[in-house]
């Protein structure tokens, strides 16, 4: 009940949430680590071939339910494909998209944001105008539209995510840069003879990093969701490759006959998205110079 005394003091709740954050960081990091391992070694650890259909083994329940078959731990879908093996293979696409799309979006968005926020002037006006326009698009519809135009496939998903989500970084980094630029240490750096660009990179950027790390981790979770949504409406990669979104779409249809086809990919998606977002928060508190 430490928190009861301190939460009266607004925001200043560091000391009592620190230990909790440690656990959170470990739990989320642990799940993501297992997922990366599972995805890396999917071809070797999958109990079955994720594409192998067997109509005689269709809709087998998971192992603890009567009627299950050994070797199909989490049951099979309506075509008799093993749910666990498909999930492990689906994790590959989810994680590749998360890491590549997340990182690239972060690089592009943050670069635009720091330039707009620090140099201001016409560059800022142009970038801000584009952000305004981008904010007027419903993101999911925008993503689906882009995929329809540039075609399906992993590269298309990554491109679509970058095009849609750069504003998430630009908006925050721009605002943060603006508030940093008026601080005294920036003026001192200028007085000490640092150039504008060098001040931006070596003085402002390090102070933005905690924010950027949180956003990056969040963005990876968002990328996983976008990939799942695109697969759900059958607009991600070729139909027979296993994806979490594709499994969820199939599970949504056969929900009354085989709940497990929906439940397991949903749990995986849920834990992954939650882990990415909480992991970022945890990291921030570890690396934030003020909190440390």
């Amino acid at each position, binding site marked *: 009940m430490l928190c009861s*005394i301190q939460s009266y003091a607004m925001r200043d709740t560091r000391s009592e949430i620190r230990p909790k954050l440690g656990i959170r960081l470990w739990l989320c990091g642990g799940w993501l680590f297992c997922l990366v391992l599972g995805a890396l070694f999917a071809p070797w650890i999958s109990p079955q071939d994720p594409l192998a259909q067997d109509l005689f083994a269709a809709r087998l329940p998971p192992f603890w339910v009567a009627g299950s078959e050994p070797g199909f731990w989490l049951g099979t879908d309506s075509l008799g494909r093993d749910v666990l093996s498909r999930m492990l293979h689906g994790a590959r696409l989810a994680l590749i998209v998360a890491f590549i799309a997340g990182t690239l979006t972060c690089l592009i968005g943050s670069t635009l944001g720091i330039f707009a926020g620090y140099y201001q002037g016409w560059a800022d006006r142009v970038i801000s105008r584009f952000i305004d326009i981008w904010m*007027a698009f419903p993101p999911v519809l925008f993503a689906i539209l882009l995929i329809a*135009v540039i075609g399906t496939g992993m590269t298309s998903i990554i491109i679509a995510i970058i095009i849609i989500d750069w504003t998430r970084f630009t908006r925050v980094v721009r605002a943060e840069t603006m508030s940093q630029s008026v601080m005294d240490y920036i003026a001192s750096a200028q007085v000490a003879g640092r150039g504008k660009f060098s001040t931006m990179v070596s003085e402002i950027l390090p102070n933005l990093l905690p924010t950027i790390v949180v956003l990056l981790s969040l963005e990876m979770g968002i990328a996983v969701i976008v990939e799942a949504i695109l697969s759900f409406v059958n607009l991600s990669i070729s139909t027979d490759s296993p994806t979490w979104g594709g499994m969820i779409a199939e599970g949504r249809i056969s929900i009354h006959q085989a709940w497990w086809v929906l439940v397991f990919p*949903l749990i995986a998606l849920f834990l992954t998205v939650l882990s990415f977002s909480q992991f970022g928060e945890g990291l921030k508190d570890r690396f934030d110079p003020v909190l440390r």
Partner: protein
Amino acid sequence: MLSRILFTRLLSTAVTLMGVAVIVFVIIRVVPGNPIAMMLPPGATDADIERLKAFYGFDKSILEQFIVWLANVLQGDFGNSISLRQPVSSLVLGRLPATLELSIFALLMAVLIGGGLALIGTRSRGTATEAAIDVTNGMALSIPDFLWGLFFILMFGVLLPIFHISGRISPSLNLDFSTNFYLVESLLRLRFDIFMDLIGHMFMPALALAIPLAAIIAQLLKQSLKESMNLDYVTLARTKGYSEYQVIIKEALPNAVLPTLTLVGVQFTFLIGGTVIIERLFSYEGLGNMAIDAVINRDLPLIQGIVILFAALFTVINLVVDMMYVVLNPKLRHA
């Protein structure tokens, strides 16, 4: 002063909408799959192709096409849907009420849940209840509407089937509606059976859309409420013998609500954006569901119409919120 703010905002709204129109047009015109080829029956002659291209205006230059298209859009003519062979404007306006009813219902839910949690959290600040609310908020914020929707389908569609998880209205109940605002119309015509059926269909998708917004409202409103709870006039009200809830609602709330209001405006557009996939998930016959079909069928005029309508809706909401903020905030009003 007010009129000058309004004018600048209107101008920037117009520029934004123009930008949206240009971008949608550019994206759609680089579509590789030729929509004409998909519409033709096998064995069509070259002359047929040319006639069809001319009919949809695809034979002119891109700039010409854009100017013609924009002139038509400004007159409310979005062309004809390729897959449904009807005017886009009537198709889109026919579906808009369903999406609006769903979004506004979800917004109400978010305000009620989020506002309620903020009040309870402020009332019991510093206790385990507040900590529980904070943890729940954190979870609710990191899970997007799509996952909430799937979760509700499992929980309340399959395990505890108490809500409908598919469609907008039970097919057996068909009142000959004269508008597409089914919910409003059923209420006005006192058909409470139909009203309840509509709510039963809308409840799960609306809740999925509402939860992330409710969490944001709870978090921000609670923070502003707690800040104002230490101010002098609140203490004064307390010494007058008001109960804690009276103090919060009558004294602290009116002053704390402004930052939340601005945020709700922006977040409401995100909520409407979420209807696209949520409608798909719950087979709800609104704009979003139609948009996904349009993309799958490569129905360019229909996609254009829907995206433009969404963008117009978003910019208008932002404009209204900005204006409300100016009107409600005395500092800005007299500035």
